[in-house]
């Protein structure tokens, strides 16, 4: 494996960042901002995942092929979401029943 490129101090900092982000997320959950709530919550979630992936999993140190695998996983999930929602969002746009 690689030599520890990430020191103990950096791990602990990442951990604290994760907790802080969580507290921010909870705080925002108590504000009523409409649809923005879910959006911000997801963005903070993605930031936490980024810390997990890049610091705690040291994914950026891996070879290119691993980056491609991670990218493919995200991309394919997005394909599933996008094309499924393409149907649900565009329903009832025509004045014809069932189209």
């Amino acid at each position, binding site marked *: *494996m*690689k*030599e*520890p490129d*990430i020191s*103990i101090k950096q*791990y*602990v900092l*990442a*951990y604290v960042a*994760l*907790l802080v982000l*969580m507290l921010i*997320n*909870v705080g*925002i*959950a*108590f504000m*009523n901002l409409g649809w923005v*709530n*879910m959006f911000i*919550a*997801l963005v*903070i*979630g993605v930031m*936490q*995942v980024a810390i*997990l*992936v890049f610091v*705690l*999993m040291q994914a950026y140190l*891996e*070879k290119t*092929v*691993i980056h491609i*695998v*991670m990218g*493919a*996983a*995200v991309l*394919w*999930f997005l394909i*599933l*979401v996008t094309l*499924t*929602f393409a149907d*649900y969002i565009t329903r009832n746009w025509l004045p014809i029943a069932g189209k």
Partner: protein
Amino acid sequence: MASPARALREQFRDPQQQRDTATMGMFTFMATEVMFFGGLFVAFAVYRMYYTAGFMEGSREMELLIGSINTAVLFTSCLTMSLAIHAISIGKQARCYWLLILTAVIGLLFLALKFLEYFLHYADHKVPGIWFDSSSPHAHAVQLFFFFYFALTGLHAIHLSIGIGLVTVLAFRTAIGRFNAEYHTPVAIVGLYWHFVDIIWTFLYVIFYLPGFR
């Protein structure tokens, strides 16, 4: 004492190839897990779009405190797991052992809290298929919400349990000297899996616990 050097399997030319193979295998497996949970996430998203009010109501029924504590608990276990890998990579077998044990124990704490949550939902009659009743005008949507809650957190709990088992086995193997600074690939691989399970939880927390406008 089992020697790490004898760990090179027949089909490999050298230890580096074996390491790279194991790493790529685990990342590819994680890609399949993304799609596996992804199917449920998409279904959840579709129904959330249709039944936003009912799903918000479902979120209000969530135990936010327990859920938040659990999130912190899992983040802590990720820290201890990373520190365990760090320890073994600089040859500190004893430290690695204790950190792995700590990781497993924290994982068990998560499961205990989750079990408590499930029990509270059961007492509240919010378990679809077993005991569900709701007087809300959005009862059907709340039931759908709870189906996704139990399905996703249940699957997550199963994955976490497997992780706890793996970490415990790793701890045992560390104790008998299987790993050292040169060879500790299984520890790194299980670490990847452990972090991935936490990634799933991060999204579950966001979609179930936080919405609701309390």
